């Protein structure tokens, strides 16, 4: 496989979806095995790619064999894939998470969408292909195409749920289209000034022609940022996310919540680093009243605080988690914009760790819903006794969210807070700590509810949307749900203990970028 590994990452899910179209419609029982096979192949290819990247530094794959002009030094005329350690890490996360969620979905998809299982798995695989393709590509426009694939599939994956889910998905379509169109427009603005579409070429032309100060490039950067911010639900643009994730079927939430926002953050970092360049992103702009990166860090502090406060006010587990995601997005955006290497490292590390934290929590909540038929906090009385293993995994996830060692959540906080201190952005540091404390309150409220029996908690009668969740409950947790949950929980600790290895990988990719000391 070797040299062809990068393309297999994307092709495996694509062919899996085709296979389901050919045989899965008739033989529904084959859908899941095909999905698992495709995703396993994709994971294997990702691992292979990542190993090559570790050995070589980066891995370039030319689609269609179109070499760059002038013996490989000129511009790219085709589309190329480029994997470095950062994108390799994100690819690993995508492959691993999607495989785990696919295992987890065995009973859930049949329960949530009994009559459209093949369609569900086709969309599922194509979403994974889209996300992986976005991460791996080095072409700004190809990224747009894959962005749309992942968007369309995620709209549909949400909309197969309850009627509230359809409505949320509709809002998501509107917001998502605006976001993707802004991105497209931004690429257009870049294209009109540079005439190329390959990300590295765009950067090279911007540098060569000294375009950094031109209004078009400025506006392009704003448009692209706005676009990805909408897609990642950065705070004032977050409105679509909570409903979309909480009303969607269990599997959809478990797949999208860990991956979609994280991949968008990776895209943002990619844009900052590869397309515009750090010098452009972090330099104070003459004539701007505010320092560009200061402004974004301030926004992300607000996002963190707002997300945490909104999460605190929710009584529904899934809703609450979605607001925590919004706060976590603030972590990563802020970290990336702190304008120092630690912050960037922390942001990338947090992409990895947050993906698994969110996965662990969503999987646990999925199990809770499957077992109790609802997800209100009031309904969690005595769950520690009823399902101790699930709750233990949930606890690990929650501790990671709070940021207690040795889970990975602690270490991402460690790097981000350290970077905040180094950059002198005290409000960001404060926001991170505040959010940690808020998460502590949120989760311990749940633990308390789940630990103490009902009579102590004086629970209100649980009320819930009847068509939001399956009403029939399972007697015991199927192992197809328990195993992914536990793998994700253990991963949190493994990622924490071996965080330095990951951070070194990230650093090796960041090495080529000369981080200058933050101004101000």
């Amino acid at each position, binding site marked *: 496989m070797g040299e062809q590994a990068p393309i297999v990452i994307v092709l495996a899910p694509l062919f899996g979806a085709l296979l389901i179209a050919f045989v899965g419609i008739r033989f529904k029982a084959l859908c899941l095995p095909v999905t698992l096979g495709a995703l396993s192949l994709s994971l294997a290819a990702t691992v292979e790619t990542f190993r090559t990247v570790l050995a070589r530094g980066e891995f370039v794959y030319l689609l269609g064999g179109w070499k760059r002009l002038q013996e490989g030094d000129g511009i790219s005329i085709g589309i190329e894939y480029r994997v470095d350690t950062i994108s390799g890490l994100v690819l690993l996360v995508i492959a691993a998470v999607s495989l785990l969620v696919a295992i987890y979905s065995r009973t859930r998809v049949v329960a949530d969408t009994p009559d459209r299982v093949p369609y569900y798995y086709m969309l599922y695989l194509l979403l994974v292909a889209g996300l992986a393709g976005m991460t791996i590509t080095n072409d700004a426009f190809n990224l747009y195409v894959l962005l749309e694939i992942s968007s369309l599939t995620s709209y549909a994956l949400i909309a197969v749920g309850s009627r509230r889910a359809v409505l949320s998905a509709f809002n998501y379509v509107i917001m998502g289209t605006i976001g993707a169109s802004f991105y497209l427009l931004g690429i257009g603005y870049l294209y009109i000034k540079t005439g190329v579409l390959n990300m590295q070429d765009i950067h090279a032309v911007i540098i060569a022609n000294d375009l950094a100060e031109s209004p078009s490039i400025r506006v392009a950067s704003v448009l692209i940022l706005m676009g990805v911010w909408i897609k990642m639900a950065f705070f004032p643009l977050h409105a679509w996310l909570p409903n979309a994730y909480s009303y969607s079927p269990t599997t959809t939430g478990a797949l999208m919540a860990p991956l979609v926002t994280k991949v968008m953050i990776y895209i943002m970092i990619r844009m900052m680093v590869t397309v515009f360049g750090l010098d452009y992103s972090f330099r104070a702009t003459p004539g701007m009243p505010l320092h560009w990166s200061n402004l974004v860090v301030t926004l992300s502090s607000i996002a963190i605080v707002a997300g945490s406060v909104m999460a605190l006010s929710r009584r529904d587990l899934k809703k609450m988690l979605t607001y925590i995601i919004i706060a976590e997005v603030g972590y990563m955006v802020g970290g990336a914009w702190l304008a120092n290497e630690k912050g960037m490292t922390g942001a990338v590390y947090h992409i990895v760790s947050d993906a698994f934290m969110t996965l662990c929590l969503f999987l646990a909540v999925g199990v809770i819903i499957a077992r109790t038929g609802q997800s209100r906090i009031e309904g969690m009385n005595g769950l520690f006794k009823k399902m101790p293993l699930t709750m233990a995994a949930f606890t690990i996830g929650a501790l990671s969210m709070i940021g207690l060692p040795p889970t990975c959540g602690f270490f991402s906080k460690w790097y981000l807070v350290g970077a905040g201190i180094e950059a002198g952005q005290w409000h960001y540091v404060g926001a991170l*700590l505040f959010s940690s404390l808020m998460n502590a309150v949120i989760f311990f409220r749940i633990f308390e509810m789940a*630990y103490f029996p009902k009579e102590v908690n004086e629970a209100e009668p649980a009320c819930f949307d009847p068509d939001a969740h399956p009403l029939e409950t399972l007697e015991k947790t199927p192992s197809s749900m328990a195993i992914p949950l536990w793998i994700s929980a253990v991963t949190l600790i493994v990622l924490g203990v*071996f*965080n*330095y290895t990951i*951070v070194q990988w990230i650093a090796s990719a960041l090495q080529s970028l000369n981080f200058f000391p933050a101004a101000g």
Partner: protein
Amino acid sequence: METITSPIPLFACLASLLAVIPIVAFGKNPNLRESFTFSAGFAKLTLVLLMLPWVLDGKIVEFTFVDEIVKGVPLQFRVDGLGMLFTLVASTLWILTSLYAIGYMRGAHEGSQTRFFAFFAVSLSATLGVAFAANLLTMYLFYEMLSLATFPLVTHHQDREARTGGRTYLTYLLSTSIGFVLPAMIYCYWKSGGNMDFSTGGFLAEKVGPTESLVLLLLFVFGFAKSGVMPFHSWLPNAMVAPTPVSALLHAVAVVKVGVFCIIRVFTGVFGTDFLKTMDVAVVISWIAGFTVIVSSLIALTQDNLKRRLAFSTIGQLSYIVLGVSLLSTFGVTGSILHIAMHACGKITLFFCAGAIYVAAHKKYISELVGIGRVMPVTMSAFFIGSLSVIGLPVTGGLISKFYLVMGTMQAGHMGLLAVFLVSSILNAAYFLPIVYKAFLCRPEESQFEPGIKEAPLACVVPLCITSIMSVLLFFFPGILLDLASLITGVGN
């Protein structure tokens, strides 16, 4: 100093953690289950004792899990004098407490005993982790683990009172550790250029200014809220809703001592006493601790619930330790370190007694204890010895540590703080001795007890006798503790 690389610290720490598996597995068979607790306890003590000669020789035992958990900081155990002393105390008392717990839990017909013993074992592992931690990060890790592992113990009864107590407990401990210690720690990491090792005698020395030092010190002292320094003390009285063995071991020995242990580490390992001496900032901590000593003693006087009174007394005694180390004098630090052991023996005796009274007579309030000495003479005699030790009167170990503390104050030349010691000793006497007095020396008709009430079960009484005897023995043979303490202060060798 010679360094020995050995996995013994790891095994010592893991002994109790691994015991959780058989404890849970044999939850249905209490005797078998408890036998695992004991074997783990003895295994742990043996392992600790194995390392004792090395440490007394001035060697250091090291074990590294992960070479670099973050850049420049390993996840590492290192056993030195201070850690050894604390470990010795904790693991010895664990065995006694386990014995006591069996008597108490069965005597008081508590439920969910499997969970209780399992989390008890986890807590011990976390305590040892803190004691062995070679750097600030490792210490923080186990510190947080301890906070969480003790939550199910504190809220063991799962009733409304337990919920309130548990809520206060975690709110204080977590909010301070995340809100104060975490940023302080990361700031230290940044300032020190990626070094957090305790062994160098202050990795922050010469790297921060006076104002930064003061802020960091305050963050650490308040952040390690397990030490109960006011105003972050009120989790401790609230945690008294726990069954008495928990209060005894955790809230007289393990948890609270971990708090002060961390603060001692901050003074000796993070800043270094020599460096702090060059700035006049530690005295702020001294006065905060002094204030806590006096105020908590006054509050203790007003408490009628025996365990709450003991809790406030603990708060005061902990601040002795903080005060001692913040004096930065060799005697002060020695006194602090000794006081960890002395107070542990004394206070655990008192808690054992309180529990024994509860098991035997179902009494919780001091006003109900008139004449109890007549029906439970052994228990109340032990109580008497325990209170002597806490007050600091001969012939108990408490005198020795208090002696060093007072010497330290004089050495540092803070005469105002000397008054704190004097006043608080009087107050200590004032809230303990009347209990003993009324228990024994009341007229028979005043006694609130029928003659039918007997001593608590043997499993309860034996440990409390042993600990009270230990309190006395420590007065006569404090040598080993002094040796260990001198390894830290560097005096006496």
